[in-house]
C-alpha cells in the first residue's frame, strides 16, 4: 500500500468520535498552555502522562500531539499581545508582533500567525506522512552502532551545539545521563546507584523529573525575580481580518517559513527556535520593506510562526521513525509511548500502522481545529493572560503535584519532585539549559543499550563503532557539531549561537 492509502486509513481512525474528542481536548489544552507564560507543551504532556495511564494509547497520543501543535499556535498570541513569549519558539514573533499590536494592528498580526501556522502545519504534516516511510526503510538497515551514533549526534546537538555555553550544556546532559544510570541495569539486572533505596530501583520517573524541572523550577525562578509590576496586555484593536496587502506579503513568508522549519525540526538539532530565527533573518533580507523590520513588519510574524509549526511536525519525523526525540516535548512523548509498552521506530510502522497513521492523520484534523480555536475565539485566550500571577502559579503547582501524586502517592516521590525542582531552579539561576537533562534521562538508557549490543556483537572491539559508513558519517557530524561551536565561541562569535539556544520546547 502507498502512503496515501495508509493516510486515508489513518483518517478513518482519526475520525472516530472518541479520537476527535481527544484531539479537541489536546489542541484546546495546548493552546491554553501555549498562551500562559511559564508553562509549555513539554510540561503539559508530562503532567498528563500519569492521568492517561488507563486511557487508550492511540487516543492519548493523539491528545499529546494535539498539545504539541496547540502550544505552537498559542505561544504566538502571548508574544504578540504581551511581549512576553509564552514559548521559547515564539521569541522572534514578539519582535515584530508586539510592535504591530502597539500600532493597532494586533488583529492582522494574530491572523497571519494563525493562518501561517495552519498552512505550515498542514504542509509539514503531509511532509511527515510522505517522508516517514522512506526514513523507515532507511532505518531498517540501522544496526546498534548506527543507532548509537545517531544518539550521540542527538546528545551533542541538544546539549552543546546551540545555547551560550558548551560547558553548561554538556554539564546538563551529563547530569541527565547520571540520573539515567540509577536503578536496575536492563541487561544484567544489577542495581546501580540506588544505594539500597527500594524506591530508586525502578529508576527516576521521567514525568517526575520533567514536572519538577519545568513546573517547580520555573515557578521558583519566577518567584525569585520578585514583583516587577503587572505586565501590559495590548488589547486586540482593529479587525482580525487581513487586508489584501497583508495577504500578499504573508503568503510567501508562510511557505518559506515552512520550508526552513520542517527540515530543522526533522534533524536531530533540537527545538523549534532555530528555524524561527533563520526564517526571521531570511524574511528581513528578502523583504521589499526592510525599513519596517523592528517596527512591526508582517513578514516577521508570518515567517517565524510558520517555521515553528513546521518544525513541530518535523520533530515527529525522527520521533516516529527512529524513536529519537530531538526536543523536550518529543522526549516526553517518547515516554508516553513507552508507558504503553510501545517503542517508536521502524517496527512500529509495521506492527501498529493503525496507531501511527491515525496519529499522523489526526494532526491534519487538529490543524483545522486549531485554526477555528485561534482565529474567531482569540478573545477568549486573551482573557487567560489576565490571570493574576499568585493564582496562576498556585494553580500550576496544584496540577504539577497532582500528576506525581496520581502516579505514586509517596512522600519519597514528592521529595524527589522537590529536590529536582530545586535543582531546576539552581540550574536556571546559573544559566544551565534544562532540556538536555530530560533528553539525557530518556535517551541515556537507550544509547547504553545500543552501545553494549554493538560491543557484544563485536566482542568488545571498539573500532566497530566507526567502521560502518553510516555510523562514521554520523559521528563525524557529531564531532563537527561539538567542535565548530567551541571555536566560534572562543572567537567571540558566540552570541549567534546563544540566540539559537534550544530551550524547553
Amino acid at each position, binding site marked *: 500500500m502507498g502512503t496515501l492509502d495508509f493516510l486515508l486509513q489513518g483518517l478513518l481512525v482519526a475520525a472516530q468520535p472518541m479520537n476527535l474528542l481527544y484531539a479537541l481536548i489536546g489542541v484546546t489544552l495546548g493552546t491554553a498552555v501555549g498562551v500562559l507564560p511559564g508553562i509549555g507543551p513539554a510540561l503539559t504532556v508530562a503532567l498528563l502522562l500519569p492521568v492517561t495511564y488507563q486511557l487508550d494509547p492511540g487516543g492519548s497520543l493523539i491528545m499529546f500531539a494535539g498539545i504539541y501543535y496547540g502550544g505552537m499556535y498559542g505561544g504566538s498570541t502571548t508574544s504578540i499581545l504581551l511581549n512576553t513569549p509564552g514559548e521559547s519558539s515564539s521569541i522572534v514573533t514578539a519582535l515584530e508582533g508586539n510592535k504591530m499590536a502597539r500600532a493597532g494592528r494586533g488583529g492582522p498580526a494574530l491572523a497571519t500567525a494563525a493562518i501561517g501556522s495552519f498552512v505550515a502545519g498542514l504542509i509539514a504534516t503531509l511532509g511527515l506522512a510522505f517522508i516517514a516511510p522512506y526514513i523507515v526503510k532507511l532505518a531498517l538497515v540501522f544496526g546498534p552502532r548506527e543507532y548509537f551514533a545517531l544518539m550521540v549526534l542527538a546528545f551533542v546537538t541538544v546539549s552543546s551545539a546551540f545555547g551560550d555555553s558548551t560547558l553548561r550544556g554538556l*554539564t546538563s546532559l551529563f547530569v541527565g545521563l547520571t540520573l539515567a544510570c540509577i536503578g536496575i541495569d536492563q541487561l544484567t539486572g*544489577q542495581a546501580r546507584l540506588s544505594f539500597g533505596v527500594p524506591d530508586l530501583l525502578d529508576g527516576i520517573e521521567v514525568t517526575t523529573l520533567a514536572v519538577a524541572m519545568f513546573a517547580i523550577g520555573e515557578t521558583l525562578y519566577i518567584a*525569585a525575580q*520578585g514583583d516587577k509590576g503587572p505586565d501590559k496586555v495590548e488589547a486586540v484593536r482593529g479587525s482580525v481580518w487581513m487586508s489584501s496587502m497583508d495577504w500578499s506579503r504573508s503568503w510567501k513568508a508562510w511557505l518559506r517559513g515552512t520550508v526552513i522549519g520542517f527540515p530543522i525540526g526533522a534533524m536531530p538539532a533540537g527545538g523549534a527556535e532555530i528555524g524561527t530565527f533563520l526564517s526571521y533573518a531570511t524574511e528581513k533580507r528578502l523583504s521589499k520593506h526592510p525599513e519596517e523590520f523592528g517596527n512591526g513588519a508582517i513578514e516577521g510574524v508570518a515567517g517565524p510562526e510558520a517555521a515553528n509549526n513546521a518544525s513541530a511536525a518535523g520533530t515527529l519525523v525522527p520521533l516516529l521513525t527512529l524513536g529519537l526525540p530531538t526536543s523536550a516535548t518529543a522526549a516526553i512523548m517518547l515516554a508516553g509511548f513507552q508507558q504503553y509498552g510501545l517503542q517508536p521506530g521502524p517496527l512500529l510502522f509495521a506492527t501498529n500502522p493503525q496507531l501511527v497513521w491515525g496519529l499522523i492523520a489526526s494532526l491534519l484534523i487538529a490543524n483545522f481545529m486549531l485554526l477555528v480555536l485561534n482565529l474567531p475565539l482569540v478573545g477568549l485566550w486573551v482573557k487567560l493572560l489576565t490571570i493574576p500571577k499568585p*493564582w496562576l502559579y498556585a494553580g500550576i*503547582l*496544584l496540577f504539577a503535584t497532582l500528576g506525581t501524586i496520581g502516579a505514586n502517592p509517596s512522600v519519597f516521590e*514528592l521529595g524527589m519532585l522537590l529536590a529536582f525542582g530545586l535543582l531546576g531552579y539552581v540550574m536556571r*539561576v546559573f544559566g544551565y539549559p534544562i532540556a538536555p537533562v530530560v533528553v539525557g534521562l530518556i535517551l541515556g538508557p537507550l544509547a547504553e543499550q545500543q552501545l553494549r549490543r554493538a560491543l557484544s556483537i563485536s566482542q568488545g572491539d571498539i573500532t566497530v563503532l566507526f567502521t560502518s559508513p553510516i555510523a562514521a558519517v554520523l559521528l563525524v557530524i557529531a564531532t563537527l557539531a561539538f567542535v565548530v561551536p567551541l571555536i566560534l565561541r572562543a572567537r567571540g562569535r558566540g552570541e549567534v549561537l546563544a540566540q539559537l539556544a534550544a530551550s524547553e520546547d
Partner: protein
Amino acid sequence: MNKGNSPSVETRRPDRAALIIAVVLAAIAGLIFWDVSRLTGLAGYSQVGPTTVPYAIACCLIVLAIWTAIEGLRGDFVEREPQQLGPVAWVVGGLVAQMLLLNTLGFSIATGILFALTARGFGKRQIWLTIPFGIAASFLVWAIFAKLLQLSLPAGPLERLLF
C-alpha cells in the same frame, strides 16, 4: 524573611559558586566510582558490562568539573541576576508541607496549603482567605480526578466526610 531582598550570590572573582559546582560535579563522579566499583565481574566476553557506561560518565563529569573550576578561577563563569529568596522559601515551604501532610490530612487539605503558601510567595498575603480557597479548589480537583478519572489520590478526613 518578609522582605528577602538580600542578594544571594556575590559576583567576585574567582567565582565561588562555580567552584562549588565543580566540587559537586566531582563528588557525583566519586559517588559513581564508589558505587559501581561494588559491581563485579559480569563484563563477560564483550568486556562491556553494567559498569562501563557509568565509569565513562564519571570520567566525563570529572573533566566537566575541572573545566567549570577553570572558568570559575578565571572569573568568566556566567553572570547572575540577584535572586529574592523570601518568595522561594514560601513556595518550598508549601511543597514541604504538602509532602508531609499528604498521607495524614489527605490530598485536598495538603494541596490547599501548598496553594496558599505559593500564592503567598507571589504576594497574596491574606493566608486566612487563600487556605480555604485552596482547599476548596483542591477538593474540586480531587473529586474530578479521583472520582471521575479514577486516579488514586490519597483521601483524608475531608474527602471521607463528603464521599
